Each structure stands twice: as structure tokens, then as C-alpha cells.
């Protein structure tokens, strides 16, 4: 009676396990399917183990406790599986979200890296143009220095020439005193001639020849005076020329100073452009390194993107496998 009862219970339990397993098998999810397949098998295996194996317990008690143990164990295993599966599902969800975010970040990083690469290329090109302009400026500055040096040399030559001319004109101007003396002598000679002519006139017929001589002397005196006036006029013009030369000398001096200042500025510009060119070369090299790093970053980001996509697909597959449901974002 007891054996039948036990068997009935076993059958009932077995049927119940089968029904429960079918129910679970119809459900979705790895844990339920595992339990549906593994649970009855475990109960049946425990029972067979008890029946076939050697047992020291009371057969009646064993007939009862064994299926109960199987059920309880299966239930505990089922509960454990549900917890694990839930956690796996949660982690899978988080993994999917993380992989999605990672993928988006990777895409954004790839776009940023591409944009950065473009900007770096533009900066590199601009730096190269600036470098070329700096080189051109440096060449122009050197040319300016060369021309300024030639102009400076010519200006100094002109300055020396004006100084020589000023000295000559100053010496000529000193002749004005001599000319003034000549003019005074001519005036006195003329007066003497006039007085001689007057005395000759007083002498009447006897002084006629002397009056001719006096007239000639007066004529010579007048010519001398006229010549001295002409020389004085020439000296006055030479004085104007001296002032003009002095003005030219001052102008050339200012020009020489300006040229010296220009040459100095040219040297400064040339040095600055050389330093600028060197700095631009360093910037260009750094930009090339940055561009290379950008390319490497882009490649790494793409690999990361691919990896994250693969990981996301794995997460989706795992989620489907665990939960038995295909998510919308999958």
C-alpha cells in the first residue's frame, strides 16, 4: 500500500514536473528552459539513484524523502537560477546600454578626430603659407638692407662731396674782402681821375693831353669797379650756393640717418622673420605630429567603434538568449 502510494506520488510528482517543465519550456528564457529540462531529469535521476543504489534508510521514508528532496532541490535550484538570470539580464541590459553609449561616443570621437584632422591640415597649410611669407619677407628685408647699404654709401659719398664743395665755397667767400678792397681802390682811382681831369681842365690847352689820360684812367677805374661788382654778385650767388649746399648737406645727413635707421630696422625684421620661420617650422612639425596622432586616434576610434558594435551585438544576443525576447533597439 505504501509502495503504491509512493509510486503514485512519484508519478504525480513526475507528471507535475513534466507539466511544470512543459510550462517552463513554453516560457521564454534560458533559466526556465534549463530548469524545464534539467529539473525533472534531476528528480528522476535522484529517484532512480535511490531505487537502484544502496540505501540504508527506511525504504518507506526514502520513498517519500527522495522525491521531496528532489523537488525541494529543484525548487531551490530554480530560485537560484531565477536570481542569476535576473542579474544576468540586468547586467546584459546595462552592457547593452554601455555598449550603445560607447558606440555613440566612438562615433562622435571618430567625427571629432576627423574634424580635428581637417583642422590640423588647415593649420598646417596656413603655417606653411605663413612660413613662405616669412621667407619672402626675410628676403625682402635682406634686399632692403643691401639697397639701404648702397644708398648709405652713396649718401656718405654725397655728404663728403657737399662738405668739400662747402669748403671751396667758403674759401671763395673769403675773396669778398679782396673784392671789396678792389672796389674801394677803383672808387678812389676814379676820384683821382676826376680830380686829374678837373686839374687838366684848369690847365686849359696845356692840360688837354692829360685830360685824355685822366679820362682813360677813369674809364679803367669804372671798368674795375664794374668788374668788382660783378665778382661781388658772383660771390653773392656763391653764398646762395653755399646755403643751398648746406641745405643739401643737412638733407643728406638726415637721409643717411634715415637709411641707417632703415638698415637697422631691416636687420631686425630679417632676424625676426628668421626666428619666426624657425618657429613656424617647429609648429609645422608639431602639427604633422598632431595630424599623425589624429590619424592614429581615428583608426583607434574606428577599431573601438567596431569592437563596441561587436560587443553590443554580443550583448543583444545574450539578452535574447537570456530573456528570450528581442529588444526593440536590437
Amino acid at each position: 500500500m505504501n509502495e503504491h502510494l509512493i509510486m503514485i506520488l512519484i508519478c504525480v510528482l513526475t507528471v507535475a514536473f513534466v507539466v511544470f517543465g512543459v510550462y517552463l519550456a513554453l516560457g521564454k528564457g534560458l533559466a526556465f528552459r534549463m530548469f524545464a529540462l534539467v529539473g525533472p531529469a534531476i528528480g528522476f535521476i535522484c529517484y532512480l539513484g535511490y531505487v537502484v543504489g544502496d540505501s540504508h534508510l527506511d525504504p518507506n521514508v526514502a520513498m517519500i524523502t527522495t522525491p521531496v528532496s528532489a523537488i525541494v532541490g529543484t525548487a531551490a535550484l530554480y530560485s537560484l537560477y531565477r536570481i542569476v538570470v535576473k542579474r544576468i539580464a540586468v547586467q546584459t541590459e546595462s552592457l547593452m546600454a554601455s555598449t550603445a553609449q560607447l558606440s555613440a561616443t566612438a562615433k562622435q570621437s571618430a567625427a571629432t578626430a576627423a574634424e580635428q584632422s581637417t583642422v590640423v591640415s588647415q593649420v598646417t597649410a596656413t603655417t606653411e603659407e605663413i612660413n613662405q611669407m616669412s621667407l619672402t619677407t626675410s628676403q625682402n628685408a635682406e634686399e632692403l638692407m643691401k639697397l639701404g647699404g648702397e644708398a648709405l654709401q652713396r649718401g656718405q659719398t654725397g655728404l663728403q662731396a657737399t662738405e668739400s664743395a662747402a669748403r671751396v665755397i667758403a674759401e671763395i667767400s673769403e675773396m669778398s674782402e679782396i673784392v671789396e678792397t678792389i672796389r674801394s681802390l677803383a672808387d678812389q682811382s676814379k676820384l683821382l681821375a676826376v680830380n686829374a681831369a678837373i686839374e687838366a681842365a684848369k690847365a686849359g690847352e696845356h692840360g688837354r693831353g692829360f685830360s685824355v689820360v685822366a679820362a682813360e684812367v677813369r674809364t679803367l677805374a669804372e671798368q674795375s669797379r664794374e668788374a668788382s661788382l660783378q665778382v661781388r654778385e658772383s660771390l653773392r650767388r656763391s653764398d646762395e650756393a653755399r646755403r643751398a649746399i648746406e641745405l643739401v648737406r643737412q638733407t643728406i645727413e638726415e637721409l643717411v640717418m634715415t637709411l641707417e635707421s632703415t638698415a637697422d630696422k631691416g636687420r631686425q625684421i630679417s632676424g625676426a622673420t628668421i626666428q619666426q620661420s624657425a618657429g613656424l617650422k617647429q609648429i609645422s612639425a608639431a602639427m604633422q605630429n598632431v595630424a599623425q596622432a589624429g590619424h592614429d586616434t581615428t583608426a583607434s576610434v574606428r577599431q573601438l567603434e567596431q569592437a563596441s558594435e561587436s560587443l553590443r551585438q554580443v550583448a543583444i544576443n545574450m539578452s535574447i538568449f537570456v530573456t528570450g525576447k528581442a529588444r526593440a533597439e536590437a
Partner: protein
Amino acid sequence: MDERDKRLLQQRAARYAIRNPNDSEYSRSAFESMPSYESQARDHSFVIFRLGGERFALQATSVLAVGPMPPLVPLPGQPDAVRGICLFRGVCVSVIDLAGYLGVSLSEESLLMTAHDPHGRPLSFAIEGVDDVCALELSDEAGRERSVDWPVRAIARTARSSSERSEFVSIIELGLLYQSERISVLKNA
């Protein structure tokens, strides 16, 4: 100028400063009694000089000398026509303002002409310059200038060659200067 010259000039100045009440003008008859100028002009030489931009002539025989302008000593109480006195060959000579008398102004005063007056005394005046010593040709206008109130006795023109342009000059008679009250003080000095 030494102290002796200054003393002489001061004595002469003091004597000239006293107006002589017995001075009398040259009469018209005296003027008319002068020899014909037409007869003298061609035969005598004249000194042509400039005064106030105009040309005047003085008979060469009456001119003593032409020289640079010496320093003048003003006379106390002197007439307006007398500018002062100066030394000429050791003699004090009156320097009259001939330009002012003739109504012209000196543009430059560089020379002093000294001449004999009709009394044979030296008389000086400032001129601008001497142009020539030559004979003159009387012009047709000569007679009209004959006046007892004007020292210009005749108008003549310089006898130049055909290539040169002759210029008119005014012949001055120093004796006529004494007809003026301004100058008459010198007549008997």
C-alpha cells in the same frame, strides 16, 4: 681829426653863426652883368655830377676837388642850408645843403665836392657821384632857366659821340646861391 682841427672848426662855426645884417642879395643887374654863358659852354669843361637822381654841371675851373665825404661838424645857430663845416686841405670849409636848396633829396651821400664861389672862397656840398668831366652843348631851353631866384644858370647837354645818348644837365652858378637869404650869410664870411 686832432684838437687843432676841432678848434679851427669851432672858431669858424662861431663866426658863421653870426648873421651879418649888411648882407645883401645879388641884384638883377649883377646877374645880368655876368658874361654870356653861351660863349663859355663850348670852350670850358664842366664837371657832371649827380644830385637827387638828377644831373648837374659845374664849371671845372671853379671846382677844387672831389673826394670822399669827411665827418661834418655842425654849426650852432647855423642856417638850414648850412649842414656844417669840414676841413679841406687844412682850411675850414662850409658845407651847404645844395640838394635841399635845389629841392631834391640825396639818395646816397658818398662824395663831397669843393668849389670856388665867385669870391674865390672854397665852398663844399655833398653829391651822389661824378659822371664825367667834359664840354657841354647849350640847349634851346637854356634862356628860360635864367632867373635870379634859381642857381641853375643854363640847361645843356653832354657832348657825346654819335653812338652814345646825350643827356641834359643843369649848369649851376654858385654865385647865384648867395641870392638866397638862406645862403647869404656865407657871402661875407
